[in-house]
């Protein structure tokens, strides 16, 4: 399995960390700007696909394994379900951190003002945490798809 040319590899190494930090930006700001766990996870999985195609599967095997990607996926799903279970004293999927929740927990529960506000990361109750959980799941899932198809489909 050949790697691509030197120019492509260098640009991929440069772009890799930028795509990662941009994906984290999309996941973290999911409740403020367009984005969220699904979109950010897709962007991060594309970063994995970029490394696999630029360096070839032989080198990418050192950095990712099928086990790590699929366990990432399982971890995300488990986190998501347990976040849903944490609100079980009211109902399943109860947003127990939100501004209107009854036993008020003063973290993540600022009520955002109407109008332009970009920096209020600590709003939204459990929504940012669920974004992160779903993001982990989507990274693992889509990354595992590309990894496995790249490794196995050769003939």
């Amino acid at each position, binding site marked *: 399995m050949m790697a691509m*040319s030197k*120019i*492509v590899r260098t*640009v991929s190494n*440069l*772009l890799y960390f930028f795509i990662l930090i941009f994906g984290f930006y999309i996941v973290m700001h999911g409740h403020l700007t367009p984005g969220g766990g699904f979109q950010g996870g897709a962007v991060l999985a594309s970063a994995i696909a970029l490394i696999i195609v630029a360096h070839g599967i032989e080198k990418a095997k050192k950095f990712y394994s099928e086990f790590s990607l699929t366990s990432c996926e399982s971890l995300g799903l488990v986190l998501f379900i347990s976040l849903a279970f944490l609100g079980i004293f009211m109902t399943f999927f109860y947003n127990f951190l939100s501004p209107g929740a009854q036993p008020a927990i003063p973290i993540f529960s600022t009520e955002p003002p109407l109008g*332009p506000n*970009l920096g209020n990361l600590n709003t939204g109750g459990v929504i940012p945490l669920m974004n992160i959980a779903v993001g982990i799941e989507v990274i693992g899932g889509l990354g595992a798809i590309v990894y496995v198809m790249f490794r196995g489909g050769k003939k």
Partner: protein
Amino acid sequence: MIPECVIYLFLGIGLFFNFMGSIGLMRMPDIYTRLHAATKCTTFGSIFTSLAVIIYGILWWYDGHSSYAPLATHTIVALAAILVTNPTGAHAIARASHRAGVKPERAVVDRLEEVKLP
């Protein structure tokens, strides 16, 4: 007044070069020359249209809307992404089609044909 004229000028330049890129995509004879036209002209035109938006955003920011700063900064990020990825993509396509056996049309010299690279 002057900034608006600059914005109009930049939009005009961007439109002209994007048009040239699209026309070159149709008129040129083979894939390498098409890559010349498409990559250079569309990148240059997009730089100018993005510069117009950046100037617009900075003026808006300067007018006191501090939370409108991302219009300029995010456009700069998109512009940097275009500037890095476009020529690299063109290089990848050119290399792949040379390896796939597409000869440059009307070529006077082809040194790459003589040295077989791995």
